[in-house]
C-alpha cells in the first residue's frame, strides 16, 4: 500500500482525510444526484401543472373557436420566464394559437404524443385539452432548462467549494487530532531509538494515557527493566567468569574466526611471557609461527571447522614442555584451555622407569629364587634318595647282625643294637617323609568334585583298625563336597585325623569331631579334638618342616605332616590354620576355593 512508507502522523492524517473526504464527496454526490433528479422531476411536474392549467383554461377558447382568447391565455405564460414556447392545436392538429406570437413556425408538427421529455436544453411536451369527456385540442409547451442548468452548475461549484472547505477543515482538525494518537507513539518510538542508539537501558518512556498505547508503553518499560536487570546479571556473570578465567590454574585464551586473540588470562600471558596488550587482536599464527602445522594448529583447525571440542596432550619441542590442552568451539572461534604438565609427565616417566627397574629386579630375584628352590629340591631329593641306600644297608646289616650274633651278645649290647635299629628306622621314616614332601611339590593336581564325607569315612575306617582297643568318640557332621585333587586331599585328611588320634592318645575319653561349611567363595572344614593341644605362642612353628611342638618321647612324629598339609592346601589356593590351648585340645581348619 502506498501508505506504508509514510510516517505515522501522515498515515493517520491520510486516513482521517480519506475518510472525511469520502464522506464529503459521497454526501455532495448524493445531494447533487438528488438535486438533479428531483429538479428534473420537479421541472416536469411544474411544467405539467402549468400545462394542465393552461389546457384547462384553453378549453372554452378551443370549444368556441376563440383564438384571441387562446392567445390571451397563452400570453399569461409570460409570468413563467422559463417557458419559451407554447401552442394550442385544435382537434384536427392545426395550430390554433401560439406563444409568443409569431412563433408558429417554431412549433413542432402535431402528433398524438403525450407527456413531457427533455430535448436538449428544453423540457417540452404535449398536453391534451379536455373539457369533461371531450377532447378539444392539444397544448404544446416548451420550457428552457438553461436556468436550471445554470443553477445546477452553481450547485456543482458550491459543492466543490464545500468539499474543498470540508477537506481543509478536516486537514486542520486531523492534523490536531492525529497528534493525540501519534504523539505517544512517536515519543515511544523516540525512546526506543534512543535506547537502541545509546544502549542505555535505564531510559523509560513516559506513559500518557491508559489506552492501548499506554499499555504498550508499560510493556516497553517492563521490557527495558527486564533487559536492564538481565544486563546487570550478565555483567555480573561476565565478571565472575572473567575472574574464574583469570584465577584458574589453567592457561586460557580465545580466538575469533580469523584466529585473532580475543581474550587471554594471566597464566597464559605469564607462560607466553607477553603483556595482554601485545597479544590481544593479534593473529595467533603470526605471533607464534612455530606453532603452524603443529598438533595445536591441526586441532584448532579441526575444532574451528567441526565445532566439536577436542582434548589432547602434546609435546612442544621448542619449549621442551608437555601441554595438556582442551579446545572448545566458542562464538565464531575457539577457546583454548591448557596447562603445562611437564612436571607430571616427568614424574610419571620416573615412576614408570622405576617400576620397570623394580620389575626387572623382582623377575631376576624370582628366577634366582626359583633356581635355588629347584636346586634345593633336587638336592634334598637326591640327598634323601642317596641317603636311603646306605641307611637300608645299615638297617639290613643291623638286622642280620642281631639275628646272627644276638645270642652272643650281652644284654647291654643288645640294647645298643636295638637303639641303632630304632634310629635307622626313624631316619628311614624321615627320609620317606622328606621324599613325599618334595614329590608333592612336583605332583600335578587332578582336580574334580569329590565327596569329602566318603573320603573322611573311608580314612576313619582304616585308622580305627589300627587302634587297639582305644575308645574314641568320633562324630562326622555333614560335609560339603570339594573341588580338589582327590589323592592329595586324602593325604590332608589322613594327616589331620591321625594327628587327632595321636594327640588324644593320653585321654581316657577321646573326642574327635569333623565338620564343614560353605562360606562365601570358600568351603571350610575342620577337625577338632580334645587332646593335648598346644600353646598358641608356638603357632609360628606349627606348619614348618621338621618343626615339632612335642618331644619325640611324648608323641612320635617327623614334623613333616603339617608342612605337607600346608603345601597341598597352598597349591589348591586354600589355607590351613589352627586354634588350640594346652591340654584343652586343638582345632585344625582348612579352606578350599569353590570351583
Amino acid at each position, binding site marked *: 500500500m502506498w501508505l506504508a512508507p509514510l510516517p505515522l502522523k501522515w498515515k493517520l492524517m491520510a486516513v482521517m482525510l480519506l475518510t472525511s473526504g469520502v464522506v464529503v464527496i459521497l454526501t455532495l454526490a448524493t445531494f447533487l444526484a438528488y438535486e438533479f433528479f428531483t429538479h428534473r422531476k420537479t421541472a416536469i411536474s411544474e411544467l405539467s401543472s402549468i400545462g394542465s392549467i393552461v389546457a384547462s383554461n384553453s378549453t372554452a377558447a378551443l370549444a368556441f373557436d376563440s383564438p384571441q382568447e387562446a392567445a390571451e391565455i397563452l400570453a399569461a405564460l409570460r409570468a413563467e420566464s422559463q417557458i419559451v414556447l407554447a401552442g394550442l392545436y385544435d382537434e384536427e392538429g392545426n395550430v390554433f394559437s401560439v406563444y409568443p406570437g409569431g412563433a408558429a413556425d417554431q412549433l413542432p408538427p402535431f402528433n398524438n404524443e403525450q407527456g413531457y421529455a427533455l430535448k436538449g436544453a428544453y423540457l417540452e411536451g404535449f398536453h391534451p385539452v379536455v373539457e*369533461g369527456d371531450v377532447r378539444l385540442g392539444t397544448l404544446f409547451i416548451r420550457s428552457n432548462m438553461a436556468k436550471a442548468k445554470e443553477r445546477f452548475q452553481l450547485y456543482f461549484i458550491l459543492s466543490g467549494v464545500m468539499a474543498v472547505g470540508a477537506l481543509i477543515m478536516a486537514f486542520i482538525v486531523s492534523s490536531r487530532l492525529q497528534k493525540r494518537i501519534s504523539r505517544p507513539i512517536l515519543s515511544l518510538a523516540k525512546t526506543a531509538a534512543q535506547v537502541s542508539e545509546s544502549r542505555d537501558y535505564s531510559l523509560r518512556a513516559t506513559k500518557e494515557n491508559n489506552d492501548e498505547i499506554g499499555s504498550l508503553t508499560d510493556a516497553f518499560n517492563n521490557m527495558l527493566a527486564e533487559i536492564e536487570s538481565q544486563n546487570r546479571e550478565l555483567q555480573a556473570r561476565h565478571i565472575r567468569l572473567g575472574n574464574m578465567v583469570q584465577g584458574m590454574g589453567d592457561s586460557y585464551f580465545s580466538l575469533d574466526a580469523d584466529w585473532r586473540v580475543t581474550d587471554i588470562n594471566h597464566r597464559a600471558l605469564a607462560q607466553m611471557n607477553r603483556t595482554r596488550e601485545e597479544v590481544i587482536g593479534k593473529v595467533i599464527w603470526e605471533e607464534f609461527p612455530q606453532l603452524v602445522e603443529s598438533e595445536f594448529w591441526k586441532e584448532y583447525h579441526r575444532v574451528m571447522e567441526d565445532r566439536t571440542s577436542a582434548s589432547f596432550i602434546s609435546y612442544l619441542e621448542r619449549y621442551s614442555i608437555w601441554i595438556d590442552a582442551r579446545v572448545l568451539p566458542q562464538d565464531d572461534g575457539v577457546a583454548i584451555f591448557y596447562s603445562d604438565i611437564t612436571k607430571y609427565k616427568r614424574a610419571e616417566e620416573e615412576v614408570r622407569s622405576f617400576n620397570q627397574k623394580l620389575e626387572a629386579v623382582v623377575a631376576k630375584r624370582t628366577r634366582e629364587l626359583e633356581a635355588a628352590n629347584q636346586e634345593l629340591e633336587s638336592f634334598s631329593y637326591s640327598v634323601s634318595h642317596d641317603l636311603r641306600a646306605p641307611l637300608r644297608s645299615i638297617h639290613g646289616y643291623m638286622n642280620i647282625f642281631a639275628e646272627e650274633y644276638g645270642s652272643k651278645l650281652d644284654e647291654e649290647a643288645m640294647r645298643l643294637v636295638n637303639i641303632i635299629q630304632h634310629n635307622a628306622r626313624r631316619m628311614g621314616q624321615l627320609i620317606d617323609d622328606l621324599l613325599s614332601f618334595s614329590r608333592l611339590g612336583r605332583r600335578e593336581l587332578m582336580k574334580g568334585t569329590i565327596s569329602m564325607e566318603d573320603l573322611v569315612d573311608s580314612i576313619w575306617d582304616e585308622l580305627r583298625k589300627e587302634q587297639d582297643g582305644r575308645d574314641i568318640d568320633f562324630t562326622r557332621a555333614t560335609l560339603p563336597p570339594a573341588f580338589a585333587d582327590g589323592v592329595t586331599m586324602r593325604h590332608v585328611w589322613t594327616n589331620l585325623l591321625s594327628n587327632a588320634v595321636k594327640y588324644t592318645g593320653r585321654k581316657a575319653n577321646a573326642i574327635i569331631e569333623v565338620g564343614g561349611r560353605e562360606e562365601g567363595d570358600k568351603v571350610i572344614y575342620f577337625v577338632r579334638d580334645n587332646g593335648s593341644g598346644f600353646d598358641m605362642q608356638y603357632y609360628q612353628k606349627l606348619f614348618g618342616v621338621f618343626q615339632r611342638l612335642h618331644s619325640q618321647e611324648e608323641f612320635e612324629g617327623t614334623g613333616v605332616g603339617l608342612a605337607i598339609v600346608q603345601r597341598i592346601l597352598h597349591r589348591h589356593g586354600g589355607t590351613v590354620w589352627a586354634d588350640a590351648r594346652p591340654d584343652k585340645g586343638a582345632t585344625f581348619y582348612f579352606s578350599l576355593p569353590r570351583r
Partner: protein
Amino acid sequence: MMFRILWTCLALTSLQVQGSNAAAQVPDEYKVKAVFLFHFAQFVEWPDDSFSRQDEPMVIGVLGENPFGDYLDEVVSGESIKGHPLQVKRFSKPEEISKCHILFVGVDGMGQLRTLLKDLESRAMLTVGDNPAFIRAGGMIRFFSEDSKIRLQINPEAARSSGLMISSKLLRLADISIPKS
C-alpha cells in the same frame, strides 16, 4: 369530431347517399352553431334533478324552424356528457316542448319569444337563440356574428335563475349582457 364530420361529409358527397343534400344545404354558420350547441353541454351545469337517471339522455331541442338540417344530429351522434348520451329533439310548436336541457329557439316574433322564454324560466333549460333581441326577451345565450366569426352573448343571471351554472371559461369568451328588468 370535426374530423368525423368532415369524413361524413366526404362520405356523403362521394357516395351520394340519401340526405347528402340536406347536409350540404346547411350553411357554415349553422354548422358552427350546431357544434357550439354541443359544446354548451360541456360548459354548463344543470341542477341535479335535471336527470332522473344516470344514463338519461341529454336532450338538445330545436324549436321551430330547424336551420341545422341533420347536421346537429351528426355532431352529437355517439357523444355523451358525464354519462348522458346526447339526443336531438325537434319541436315545431312551444307546446310540444318536452323535457330537454338545451333548447335552440328558432322563433322570431319578439312578443312570442318573450312569452315563451317566460314560460320556460322555471324549467332548467339552457335557452339559445340567434335573434338579436333574444337576451332582452329573457334568453340565456345568443349567437351573433362579428368579423365573420360566431360570437356569444350571455345573460348569466337568466341562467342562474333557472338553476343553471355557466362555466366562467365560457363566460370569459362571451359578451355578458344583463338586460334591465
